[in-house]
């Protein structure tokens, strides 16, 4: 599996003119890689992810998954949402089975697959709970299980832990790494937290402010699990933060 993004441009119509959201974005994501896309708010990182997911169209450039041009949503790309986006009328099991149901997988197999992924995300015993009965962290576990149950090649995650409190967030990051190592999926993870990106990623892609493009790519070779209070981790954070801050400050000053 290889995701290749070349000269990607996205424009939005705004009043009478066109607003350039993403400009000449280039990136290649390799099999089993964990890539974090980090950028100031409004830099188009969510738009980028939505284009990869096929939920938005690109203006120009190319975006290929294993050589095939991406056109519209497909089950080779699973997505996890910041607002969880669980179906409130479905139990945990039924949420996880959604994609399988759409594909008309037989019930017995559906139940088996759902169970497997519910266990993977640590929700055994909550199969028959409804989303309103779950905490934020548990909801997002369902979100992850639901995306994975469809067996996608890439897992797209749009600030998935953004709505969680700090402690839950740290725990979910640890859990995500475990799940990632067990399932061997490629992950593209959007965040605006430097700490989160440093903790999770193989590579961090820092984006510029609008129009968003690749500003810098950091390759991280710290072994996992990473120690957030180690000197190496602090140095990495400092480096990434400096890059991100420069971007934010330059544009804050430049803006009228």
């Amino acid at each position, binding site marked *: 599996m290889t995701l290749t993004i070349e000269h990607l441009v996205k424009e939005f119509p705004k009043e009478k003119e066109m607003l350039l959201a993403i400009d000449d974005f280039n990136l290649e994501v390799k099999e089993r890689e964990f890539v974090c896309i980090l950028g100031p708010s409004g830099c188009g990182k969510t738009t980028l992810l*939505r284009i990869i*997911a*096929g*939920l938005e169209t690109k203006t120009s450039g190319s975006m290929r998954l294993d050589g095939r041009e991406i056109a519209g*949503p*497909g*089950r080779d*790309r*699973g*997505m996890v*949402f910041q*607002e969880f*986006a*669980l*179906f*409130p*009328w479905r139990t945990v099991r039924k949420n996880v089975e*959604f*994609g399988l*149901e*759409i*594909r008309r997988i037989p019930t017995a197999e559906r139940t088996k697959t759902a169970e497997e992924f519910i266990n993977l995300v640590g929700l055994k015993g909550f199969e028959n709970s*409804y*989303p*309103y009965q779950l905490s934020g962290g548990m909801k997002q576990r369902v979100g992850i299980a*639901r*995306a994975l149950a*469809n067996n996608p090649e890439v897992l*797209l995650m749009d600030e998935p832990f953004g709505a969680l409190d700090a402690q839950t967030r740290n725990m979910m990051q640890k859990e995500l790494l475990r799940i990632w190592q067990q399932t061997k999926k490629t992950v593209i993870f959007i965040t605006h937290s430097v700490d989160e990106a440093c903790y999770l990623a193989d590579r961090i892609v820092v984006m510029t402010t609008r129009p968003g493009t690749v500003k810098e790519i950091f390759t991280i070779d710290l072994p996992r699990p990473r120690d957030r209070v180690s000197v190496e981790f602090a140095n990495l954070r400092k480096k990434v933060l400096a890059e991100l801050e420069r971007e934010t400050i330059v544009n804050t000053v430049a803006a009228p």
Partner: protein
Amino acid sequence: MPNKPRLILGIFNRERFLSNSKQIIIGIIALVVFVAVWWEVSLTLKLSYVPAPDAVSNAFFTSFGKVEMSLGTTMWGNIAASLQRFAIGFIFAFIIALPLGLLMGFFRIADSFFKPIVEIFRPMPPIAWVPVFLLIFGLFWGPVMVIFLGVLFPLLSNVIFGVKSVDAPLIDAARTMGANRFALFTKVVMPYTIPYIMTGITIGLGIGWMCIVAAEMIGAVGGGVGYYISYMSQIGRYDFMFAGMVVIAILGIVTVGASRFVEKRLNRRMGIK
């Protein structure tokens, strides 16, 4: 914070119990005051068409046991007749409003086509149709059609509103899992609309009872509580007339209450407060 009271379950429940019983006591006091004032007024006025509460209550209980000669049935029979009309009108409204609302909410073409027609009929009070409907549909189907109209519009508006309120991320999530437009409609939009339909039903029930009584008062075949009220008024038995009105109030409270109960349970399951 919202979860906190659960941790101190005992105290929380007690407080809630106290405030609930306080509300109930105040409610009972209000009812007692109301009956007392009514009694006083009727004793002072000494008018036959303002009977005292005891006369109405006697008439109320008598009406269930006594077969009214000219109507050929007891109050039970009248309630059955009204409920039957009500149910038929309501079911027809539901059968039309549900698919029409889903279509109008989901497909812009359907909305553009039906909206002008709906907007013409919506502001007309259903009761205004009574004379026409009695002429066209007769004494049985006329009142049924009035209920149909009364229930149709609140139900339709709520279904359309429900479809248009579907959370965008839910649609996105379904699409990333491979849902086509048909699957979006059946597996996301339709279930999402259910609590909105239930709200429409609750509102429709309230309006429906107003419609049926009005329709039956003008004309009905085979009795009915509305017909009973107007008959008792014509023969000057105002105590029985009021008893009929009490019956309508009870029917309304029971049906709307039941519907609201279902609505609340549904909302809870759907995660709506």
